[in-house]
Each structure stands twice: as C-alpha cells, then as structure tokens.
C-alpha cells in the first residue's frame, strides 16, 4: 500500500476544494435554519396576535346573546355593547363602527356573524381572528383549569413499563443509539454513491489511468479512493451536524424545541456493536459493488443505470418496513435480511428494533463479509482489465477468461 497516503490526501484535498461539496454539505443546515426561521416568525406572529388583542385600533361593537364574552375582555378591546344585530350591521355600513360581532344565543349551532369595514384582502381576516380570540379566551376564563387543560390537550403524561427482569424499559429511546447507524448508512450511500462511481470512472474518462497504473498499484488507487470517500462522508456529516447542533442550543427557546436529554438515551453496547459491524460491512460491500460497476463501464453516465438498479435493491426493503416490526420470522423478512444486496437496511432496522438475534446477526455479518471480500477482489480485477477499455463495457466472460 505504498503511496496510499498520497492518494487519500490528493482525493480529499481536491474534493474539499470543490464548491459543489460545500454546497451539498451546507444546504441541509441552511434549509434547516430557514425552516427554523419560518417557525420562529410564525410563532412570533401568533404570540403577537394574542398580545395585540388590546392594541387593536379600531372601533368595535358587540351583541352577545350567548352571554359567554367576558366584560373584562370587552373592556380590553374597548368594544361597545350594541342592542341588536341590525343596529350593529347598520353602524358598520354607515361607517360609525369599524367592526361589529354578533354572538348568537347558541354558538354551538348558530353562526357567529362578523361585519367590518373593508381594509384589504389580507387585513380583513383580523375581524374574524379577534371574534374567535374573544370567544375562546372568554370561554377559557370561565372554565375550571383542569377541564381547560383536558380540552386544550395540554395534559402531560409519564408512562413507565418494566422488562421481565424488573428493569425500566426505555421504550423508543433504546432505538436511537443503534438506529443512528441506519441513518448514517442511508446518508453515506445516498450522498456518496454517485461520487464513488464518478471517482472510479474519472481516471478512465480523463485518460489518466495508464499513467497512474504505471506508477501505483490498482489496489492502492482503489483503497485510497474508498478511504478518502469514507473520510469525506464523515467531514460532510459533521459539516451538516455542527451548525444544526449549534443552532439547536442557540435557538432552542425561541423555536420552542424539545429538551434533548442525552443522558436518558440508553446505550446497549451489544446492539451498538452489531449495528456498527453491519454498517461497516454494508458500506464497504456497496462501495465495492459501485466500484466494480464503475470499473466495468467506460463512463460514469453509463454506470449510472446500473447504480440505479443497485439502489432499488438496497432501499426496496423500506417498503416492507412494517413487517420488520410485526413479523420478523416471516420468510420475506428472513430473505431480505440474508440476501446481501437487500440485507443492510433490514438488518440495521431489526437490530435497532431489537428483534435481530445474535445468531442471525452473526450469520448475516458472515455473509456480508464473504460477499464484500469477493466483490472487492472482483472489483480490483475488473478495474485492472477494464481500466484501459475507454469506449466499451467489459464483459464478465473477458474478466474470467483473462490471466490474472
């Protein structure tokens, strides 16, 4: 592996110099930030609307046959009581009042009627908003606080379940640690799949491969590219996560984000280890498959079609995800868990859920390991023979037939 460090450094540095890498990496936190701002301003607007109930600067008349509207709130909005609906409606028509609300005797069956002076398409909604707020806040002020909490759905619950050995069951929290590897795998394959193909076919498309092969071993080049891609994936992941984490702590209160109690996340060393092994084997296997496709094809464009088929097999099991929760013993789940091209997602998901036995994990890992070794060896062989095929695909017959 002479020169491995040189290849890794070159591949990483030139990728980090590309604008597209940073655009892809920073797009996620930027979009997350924009969504946060929208939520923030949306929340702020709602708060402001409530606070501004008292600041509404228009003349208002109210007829309350329901007797629900609080006198105190009417005082806050400086509303005057109007004897009947016709009188209120006429006052608005004549411009004596800016708005008039009619609350019927039975608001559950009859319609609250709102009249107002036209102030434009968007601002006209302020009359109904105020009528609604007055009714809700008046009703809330007359209701028992407990009943109000139930009706408003703000009652909080705490549920504790115990495992067979008397330990507190951590519920969904226990999915987090092993589940991170599933997210990581999805992210790395989705983000770097195309880059692996481009990276492998680049030397061929640029006609630089022959000069390279006279200078370093093909294995060194391929391993160097794979290592650099793995490192770049982590760099990109941290580039995405760091601004999000900083944003979370800085804007947690403004955006009303939930508290993240890392200490409460249970970490099962065995489950995490199994996930880590499956993740690593799966990634190297798929990178090897993509590398092999890239080596056999003259251009990244032609390799793209085969990559699509591979991705369909890889992500296809997500459609059967409910079965992984409910029927882990079913033949479909078993097949998807052991067939190498579909195995990564079922294995990682089932391990996170907790229905992947140690024996199943061991067998599946062994299959992944064997297939990974075979795929990488075939990939290197195809790369050696296919590297100099600038304009045509390499057939399997040729690869097998040639002397190693």
């Amino acid at each position, binding site marked *: 592996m002479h020169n491995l460090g*040189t290849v890794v450094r*070159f591949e990483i540095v030139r990728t980090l110099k590309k604008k597209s890498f940073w655009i892809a990496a920073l797009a996620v936190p930027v979009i997350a930030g924009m969504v946060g701002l929208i939520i923030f301003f949306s929340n702020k607007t709602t708060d402001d609307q409530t606070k501004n109930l008292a600041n509404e600067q228009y003349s208002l008349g109210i007829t309350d046959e329901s007797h629900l509207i609080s006198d105190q709130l009417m005082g806050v909005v400086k509303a005057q009581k109007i004897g009947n609906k016709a009188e209120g409606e006429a006052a608005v028509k004549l411009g004596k009042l800016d708005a008039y609300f009619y609350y019927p005797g039975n608001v559950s069956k009859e319609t609250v009627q709102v009249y107002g002076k036209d102030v434009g398409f968007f601002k006209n909604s302020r009359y109904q908003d105020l009528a609604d707020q007055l009714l809700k806040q008046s009703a809330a002020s007359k209701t028992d606080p407990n009943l109000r909490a139930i009706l408003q759905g703000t009652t909080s619950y705490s549920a504790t379940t115990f495992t067979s050995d008397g330990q507190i069951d951590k519920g969904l929290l226990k999915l987090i640690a092993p589940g991170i590897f599933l997210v990581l795998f999805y992210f790395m394959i989705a983000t770097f799949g195309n880059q692996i193909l481009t990276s492998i076919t680049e030397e061929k498309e640029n*006609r*630089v491969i*022959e*000069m390279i092969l*006279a200078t370093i*071993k093909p294995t060194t080049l391929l391993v160097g590219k794979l290592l650099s891609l793995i490192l770049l994936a982590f760099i990109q992941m941290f580039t995405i996560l760091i601004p999000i984490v900083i944003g979370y702590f800085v804007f947690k209160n403004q955006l009303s984000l939930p508290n993240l109690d890392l200490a409460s996340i249970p970490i099962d060393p065995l489950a995490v280890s199994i996930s880590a092994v499956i993740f690593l084997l799966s990634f190297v296997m798929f990178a090897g498959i993509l590398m092999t496709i890239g080596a056999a094809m003259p251009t990244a464009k032609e390799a793209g079609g085969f990559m699509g088929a591979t991705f369909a097999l890889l992500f296809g099991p997500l459609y059967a995800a409910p079965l992984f929760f409910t029927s882990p013993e079913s033949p479909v789940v078993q097949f998807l868990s052991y067939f190498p091209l579909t195995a990564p997602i079922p294995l990682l998901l089932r391990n996170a859920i907790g229905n992947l036995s140690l024996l199943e994990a061991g067998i599946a890992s062994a299959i992944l390991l064997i297939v990974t070794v075979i795929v990488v060896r075939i990939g290197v062989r195809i790369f050696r023979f296919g590297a100099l095929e600038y304009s045509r695909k390499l057939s399997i017959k040729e690869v097998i037939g040639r*002397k190693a």
Partner: protein
Amino acid sequence: MSKETPPLVTVNHFRMDFGKKTVIKDLSFDIRKGETFGLLGSNGSGKTTTIRALLGIYQPTGGELLIDGAPYTVDGSVRLGYLPEERGLYKKENVIDIMTYFGQLKGMKRSEAKEWSLNFLKRVDLGNEASTRLDKLSGGMQQKIQVGIAVMDNPQLLILDEPAKGFDPVNRRLLMDIIEEHQEQGTTVIFVTHQMEEVERLCDRILLLKDGARRLYGTVDEVKDEFGGQVLEIVSDQQVPTNEKLYTIERREGRTTMLTPKAEMLALQRFLLSSGVTYSRFELKRPSLDDIFVDVYGPSAKEEN
C-alpha cells in the same frame, strides 16, 4: 552503445492472447542500458500491448518481460517515466497540484516535486500557468505537462509512446531537446513513433513489429542492410518500363520511381536510354526508414499514421 552493454529491458518469447485472438507471437528483443530504442509498427501491430505488458498493466500469456532482470513492479528499484499514447490528466485540478501529485507518487517529497514542477513549467513557457485549471489550457500546453510528468524524478527508463502527437513544430523541437537531454544523462529511452525522421535522428536501435511478430530488428544501419541494401531513385518525365532481369520496381510516386537493381548501373542506364527514358536524377542510395516502413506495411499504413 556497445553490444557488451548489459540490457535494461529483456523480452523473451513474449506471447499475448486476448481471448482467441493472438496479438503478439513469440517476440524477443532486448534494450541496452542507456540506449534509445525505437519500437515501430503500424496501428494494431502490437507496440502498445508490448509496452503495457512490460509495465505489468497486462499479464503476458507466455514468455517473460523483464526490466533490470525482474518483472516490473511500481515499487521496484527502477525509476520509470511513461508517456502513454492514450493520455490525459485530471481536468478540473490545477497544473501544479497534478504535477506535485505525480511527483509524490513517483517517490519525490512534496516540496521537491513542487519545486521541480515549477522549474519545468518555466522551461516550457508555462511558468504563469501553475495555478491554472488544466482544462483551461490548450491541448498542446496539456501535452507539455504530460511530458513533464513523464520525465519527472530523473527516470532510468523513459517510455514515450507517440510523444510528439499534437505538438506544433516549435514544441516538437522543444520535446526533442528534452529527450536528448535525458539521453545525455544516460537514460534508457523507448521511443514509439511513426515519425521516421525522429527515429533516424534519435534511435540507436529499432524493432519493427508486424502483426505481433518481429519483422526487423537492429541498429538503423543493420535494419537498412537487412532490408535490402540499396535502392535506385530515378526522376523522369517518362514512365520507367518494367524489366525483371535488370531491376524490380518498388514503387512509383509521380515522376519518381524507386528500383531495386539486379544488374550493373551501366546496364541499367543503357536499357533506360534505349527505351527512350531520359532522367533528371539517377541516384543509388540506401533506403530511408520511411521507405522501409512503407515497404513493410504498405503505403496505406503510413497514411493511417
């Protein structure tokens, strides 16, 4: 270069099959240390396959190809410079980054590779292009950089496959100067080309491959002798008639006719004059490599190349 000089490259009974097709048949030759060796042949004659097998890019079906007594490995003892016929570089990278990378792959320190590259760029009038992205340069400029990468790290064996392809006459001159410098430093050069003038000027020995087999092999003079000694060039307004007893007509090109004489010059002259052929040139000379190339491969091969 004496015959006692030990070989740097040895090819023994090399055979190469691709599937059922045999591309090289039982090829043997050697290249002595410090000599410039011309590997010649028409398209598809097996030159590039031989070079690739020599560098371990292809595994030979039979025989052995050795550099300094052993099959070539990238981490072996021989410093190699290789300019393949199918060549290119990383298009989206800066010139200096590419050159430094290749220098490092060849075993140079990063700073050393960068310094060497900057000096080379100045020498080939690309001193201001070190930070330019490669695809912003013209084809000829890119060729110069490829040549630079091939000659980096003072190679002991320099393999140049059609090095002048794409160069204008000025840059061709520059390239020849660079090759000659390396010859003077004792570098062994394998020169794959169709430019016979360059071969005559630079090569100590040559090998002509035809259909994967050795057709002619030796010094330029030996090859000329082996090919058939002397030819007679006649320039005339009249067509030279055939005469199997006195000569064989090799080819006609306009007013020029090339003959292989079978009799005394005086007899030929008498016959031509009696046939009404008057000539402005009647010159006995050794065939040029260009003549030999055309005779071995046919005029179409020369046009192809």
